C-alpha cells in the first residue's frame, strides 16, 4: 500500500540492540524520525533565509547525531562543527568529535575555551575577572560558565560562517533540567529536542554514528570522570521510561508505582521536571499594553518577511 513506509524499517536491528539498552515502548520508526528531522532542519534554515548551520561538537552522541542529520539536510560543506574543549576535558572527547568530522567531511574549527573560563575564574592561584573572593568557583558555576562560553563562541562563529546555531539537546535532559540556561540549550532551533536519550541512540545507530560514540557513557565532560548517570543517579533507559509514562502517557503516581517505579524515584523526577519548567520557556513579560508578545500577539516565527534578505 504505502510506497515509502510500508515496512517496519524503524525497528532497531540486532546490532543496534547490542550497542545500548532500548526500552521497547520507546522504540520509534527511525526512518520517519530521520525524514521529519532532516526536513525540519532544511525548513528552519530556508525559512530564516540561511543555507548553513553551525553546531558545537562535543564528541558525545547528541551533537554527533545532530551533525549527521544536519549534514544530510544541507550537505557537509554547509555545516561548521566547532570543537570547544576546556583544558581538563577528556582527550577522548576531541578524538570522537574528529571522528565525526572525518566521517562527514564537514568544516570544523577548534576553539580552546580555557583562556575564557580561566580569565573569569582565575588559574593557579591567580584571580580572574570574578575576583579572588570565592576562588575558582564551584563545579556547578564552572560548568555553567563553560557551557555559556561555548554558546558565545557558537553565536560569534555563526556570523562569520553565515549560518544558524543548531541545537543539540535531547528531551530527557531538557525535561529534568540537566541543561545550562543560555548555555548548551541556546540555539536557533533544536532538531532532537523531542527525542529521549534512548531514542537518540536508536536514531544514531540507524544513521551510522560511530559505534564508539554510541557505546560510551554520556557525560557533560565538565570535570574529569563525570558521567550523567552517576550525577543524576538514574540510568537513561530507566529515566526515559519513567518520563515517557509520566509525561507522554499521562500516568498518575499510583499507576507509575503499580508499574514498578519506586516512590522516591517518581518523587525526585517529578520535582526535577517541575523545578526546571523555567528553563523550557521564554522569560515571561509583565502584561501592560493592549497587545503583548507571547500573550496576545501570536505570530509564527517564520512568516512573510521574516527571512533574512
Amino acid at each position, binding site marked *: 500500500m504505502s510506497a515509502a513506509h510500508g515496512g517496519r524499517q524503524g525497528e532497531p536491528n540486532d546490532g543496534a540492540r547490542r550497542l545500548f539498552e532500548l526500552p521497547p515502548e520507546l522504540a*520509534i520508526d527511525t526512518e520517519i524520525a530521520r525524514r521529519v528531522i532532516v526536513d525540519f532542519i532544511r525548513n528552519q534554515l530556508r525559512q530564516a533565509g540561511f543555507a548553513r548551520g553551525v553546531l558545537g561538537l562535543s564528541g558525545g552522541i547528541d551533537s554527533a547525531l545532530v551533525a549527521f542529520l544536519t549534514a544530510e539536510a544541507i550537505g557537509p560543506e554547509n555545516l561548521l562543527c566547532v570543537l570547544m574543549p576546556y583544558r581538563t576535558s577528556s582527550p577522548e572527547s576531541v578524538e570522537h568529535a574528529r571522528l565525526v568530522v572525518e566521517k562527514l567531511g564537514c568544516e570544523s574549527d577548534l576553539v580552546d575555551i580555557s583562556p575564557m573560563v580561566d580569565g573569569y575564574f582565575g588559574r593557579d592561584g591567580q584571580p580572574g575577572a570574578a575576583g579572588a573572593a570565592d576562588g575558582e568557583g564551584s563545579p556547578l558555576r564552572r560548568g555553567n560558565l563553560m557551557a555559556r562560553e561555548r554558546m558565545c563562541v557558537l553565536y560569534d562563529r555563526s556570523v562569520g560562517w553565515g549560518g544558524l546555531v543548531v541545537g543539540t539537546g535531547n528531551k530527557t535532559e531538557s525535561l529534568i533540567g540537566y541543561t545550562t540556561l543560555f548555555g548548551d540549550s541556546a540555539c536557533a532551533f533544536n532538531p532532537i529536542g523531542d527525542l529521549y536519550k534512548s531514542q537518540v541512540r536508536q536514531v544514531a545507530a540507524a544513521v551510522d554514528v560511530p559505534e564508539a560514540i554510541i557505546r560510551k557513557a554520556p557525560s557533560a565532560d565538565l570535570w574529569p570522570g563525570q558521567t550523567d548517570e552517576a550525577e543524576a543517579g538514574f540510568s537513561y533507559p530507566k529515566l526515559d521510561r519513567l518520563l515517557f509514562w509520566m509525561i507522554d502517557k499521562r500516568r498518575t503516581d499510583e499507576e507509575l508505582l503499580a508499574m514498578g517505579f519506586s516512590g522516591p524515584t517518581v518523587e525526585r523526577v517529578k520535582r526535577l521536571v517541575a523545578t526546571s519548567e523555567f528553563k523550557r520557556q521564554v522569560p515571561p513579560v509583565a502584561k501592560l499594553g493592549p497587545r503583548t508578545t507571547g500573550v496576545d500577539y501570536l505570530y*509564527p516565527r517564520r512568516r512573510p518577511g521574516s527571512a533574512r534578505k
Partner: protein
Amino acid sequence: MQPLRIALVQLAPRLGVLEENLARHRELLAQARAAGAGLVVFPELGLTGYQLQDLAAEVAMRKDDPRLLGLAAETQGLSAVVSFVEEADDHRLFISAALFEDGEVRFVHRKLFLPTYGLFDERRFFAAGDRLRTVDSRLGVKLGIAICEDFWHLGVAETLALDGAQMLINVSSSPGRDLAAIHEVGLGTAVSWRTLMRTYAQLTTSFVVFCNRVGMDETISFWGGSEVIGPSGEALFTAPLFDEGLYTVDVELGDVRRERIGLPLLRDERPELHLRELRRILAHRTGLEIDEASEPSDGGRETGQSAAGSREAKAAGGPDRRP
C-alpha cells in the same frame, strides 16, 4: 461509465504567503487538467498554510474575493476543492473549503469542528461553521465536503451520506506525531486516519477522498498519505508519506451503486430513531429536561430558556423515560 480521474494535490503551502500559494494552485490545476483529471483536490488551508495564528486575519478572503474568483475561473470543465481562510460579512474567520466547478464557486463548506486541545488551538483564531450540506456536482454524484477534524465526529459522515453524498471528500492539514515503532506505518496519526477512512467508506458505502498536506509549519510536520477509498472500504490508492506531489487515481463511480445494491446499509439506516434519541440526549445535555429533579450532565451548558425548551423536549417524547 467513464472512470473519473481524481488528482490529489499533496502540496506544501508556504505559511502566510497567499500570492505564492495562489500561483502554485494555478500551476497544479493546469497540471491536473493536463493529466486528465476531472476532480482536483487541494488540502486544508492550501492557500494559506495552517499554523497562522494572528496571520489568519491577514490572509483571509471573502468568498467573492477577486483572487479566489480568479482561481475558480480556471476550472472550466473541471471540479476542484480548494481551501482558504474565509472572512464572513460579519468578519468572523472560518477555515473553509470551496467547490469550484466550470469557472464558478459552487459551494463553500466551513469547518465544523475546530480542535482546541493538544497541539491544536483553532478555536482561538477561527469561528466554527454550522451548516452541513451535500452539494450536487457536475461529476454526476453528490459530494460531501469535510475538513480534517470534521471527520473525527461520527455524525458528519453519516449525515452527509444520508443527505445523498456518494463521495466524501476530506481535506486536511494533519500534523504527524507518535513515531512509536509498534505502528504498522510507523506513524500513529496515519494509522488512526486510515482506520477511520476505511470505516467511513464501508459504513456509508461511499467513496472517501482524503487529501492531506505535506511540508512543515514551524515545528509541525504534515504527513501526507492522501488516499482514495472505494465504497467497499478498500484503499484504491495511498500516496507516500511526506512526499510532495500530484497523484492521480481512476475510480469507477458505478462502484457506489454496486456496493449499495449488495450491501444496503444506507437503505436500512433509521435516522428517525436517531433523531428521537438525539432530541432526548440533547435535552439532557443542555439542561432543558422537563424533570426538574435531574441536573444537566457534566457536559451540559447553562441556558436561560428552560420553559420553551421543556415544551420542546416533551414534544420530542424523550426525557420522561430517562431513568
